[in-house]
């Protein structure tokens, strides 16, 4: 339980760990040497373009697909065989499409899911049924996407799981419903000592609730850090010159994208800019601006196609 200001760490070992993970599907390489570490007790945002390998990663971690090469571990165990069953007993998964059994009613699927989890929380079940306003006798077929998402969230949150794996939890939801879902997540993490691993395209949401972020591009990790550290490290530096901007070469490490346009040079730095700033000042610009970089720009910078 959270005592005041205690950092929420359940164990020192990463809950999810992959090393050099490769996955090939019929000639398509979905994962190409993915390295990932998800700290215990974190809310971990997993970002990437469509087709970058996010869903494949989750499938491998849950034993739905076998790695072609490399290692994947959840709770320190391999996701295959009987260990995989034990992992899934402690994990709650919500898929992107949130597809459930059309032929069941809300109450039926709750009872069905409950039967597999000895740590099922009946109190949370009542709480979320009320909060999400889910009618027990309604057929899943007749539920809107928003209701289906809430039902899927309920089924995930009541399992007493140590790890929640969510693929685009708020996709297709209006902002009010999305906030409801996020609120349920945040409340759950605070009370239940679990880890949340979620993929999302909603960068604003990720910035809101995640404390760690990883960006995946073309099957590989390109960024992985605590969100606060990312915010502290990335800087956009703009230099304006009296005449045409000179050709500059920046040697400091962590420099991305140096763009020169007329009298202006813009530099994106991912290493808190100290060295870069000193180096750039040497060019004696007439004006010198340093500003923070949003997660969106960090993302776009990390996954852009080669110039």
């Amino acid at each position, binding site marked *: 339980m959270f005592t005041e200001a205690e950092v929420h760490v359940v164990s020192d070992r990463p809950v999810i760990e992959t090393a050099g993970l490769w996955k090939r599907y019929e000639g398509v390489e979905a994962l190409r040497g993915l390295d990932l570490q998800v700290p215990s007790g974190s809310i971990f945002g997993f970002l990437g373009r469509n087709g970058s390998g996010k869903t494949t990663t989750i*499938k491998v971690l*849950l034993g739905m697909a076998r790695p072609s090469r490399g290692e994947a571990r959840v709770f320190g165990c391999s996701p295959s065989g009987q260990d995989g*069953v034990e992992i*899934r007993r402690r994990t709650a*998964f919500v898929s992107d499409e949130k*597809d459930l059994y059309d*032929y069941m009613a809300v109450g039926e699927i709750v009872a069905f*899911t409950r039967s597999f989890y000895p740590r099922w929380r009946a109190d949370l079940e009542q709480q979320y049924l009320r909060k999400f306003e889910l009618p027990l006798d309604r057929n899943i077929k007749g539920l809107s996407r928003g209701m289906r998402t809430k039902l899927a969230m309920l089924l995930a949150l009541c399992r007493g799981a140590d790890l929640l794996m969510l693929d685009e939890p708020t996709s297709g939801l209006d902002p009010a419903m999305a906030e409801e879902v996020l609120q349920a997540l945040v409340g759950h993490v605070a009370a239940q000592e679990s880890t949340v691993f979620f993929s999302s395209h909603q960068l604003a949401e990720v910035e809101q609730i995640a404390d760690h972020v990883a960006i995946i591009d073309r099957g590989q990790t390109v960024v992985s850090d605590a969100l606060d550290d990312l915010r502290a490290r990335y800087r956009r530096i703009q230099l304006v010159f009296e005449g045409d901007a000179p050709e500059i070469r920046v040697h400091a490490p962590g420099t991305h994208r140096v763009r020169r346009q007329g009298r202006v040079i813009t530099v994106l730095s991912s290493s808190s800019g100290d060295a870069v700033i000193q180096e750039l000042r040497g060019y004696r610009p007439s004006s010198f601006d340093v500003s923070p970089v949003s997660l969106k720009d960090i993302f776009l910078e990390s996954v852009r196609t080669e110039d």
Partner: protein
Amino acid sequence: MLWHKAWLETRWRFISAVLILTVMAGGNVYGWLATRALLPQLNTTTISPAAEATGLGSVIREAVELNKTFRGYIWYQAFRQNLTQMGVLFAVVLGCGGLVTESTQGSALFTLSLPITRRRLVGTRAGVGLAQCFAMAIVPSLVIPILSPAVGERFGLVDALAHGLCIFFVGAVFFSLASFLSTLFGDIWRPMLIAISIACALAFASLVIPQLRIFSVMSGETYFKTGSLPWAGLLTSAVIATALLYSAAETLERRDF
């Protein structure tokens, strides 16, 4: 609750199968009335020895002889024809579906995220399906001795059960075949068509290769003619069905979703 899920997924198919087969069996019993009325005419029908020597001629001869008695009529119409043919069809229909089909509908990932092995999934589905095949074979068969007095005849309960058992064992083979094919294809049509094609192919091949007369086992021909069950055929069917279900489990185990 996996049993419950498998039941929900197949209950309408199962109920339709039992109803249709039962109605057919009952219909056959009542059809005896019309056949009985025709009997005097059958006795005067002659088939020339030359015609009888041809394949078709001997088939017609056999049909005429069999339909002269209630027991023969029932065996010919119900067990050998209707229940065997429709039984195969319904066994295939029951065997289709399963996890791979679920993946085309989307809920497969939910199922796969549960703390169960894929073997258990296949096992549960097979268990429910085989129980359904059993009911589908026995209930229509039992209707015959129950309804026979209504047309003034008698049919042995034990005989009906024996035939029902034969239908079940061979039906199980086709159920398992459809189950196995369903782990290879995502849609529900290909397993069905392929299984039925195999059934037809077997029917034709058995005219030439006597060892393949699986439908003769299903109709309980040996039992009808000699009073003893076709033990070899039943055992072979059980072995083949088990092997097919095992293959289904192994195929599913290796599949990437």
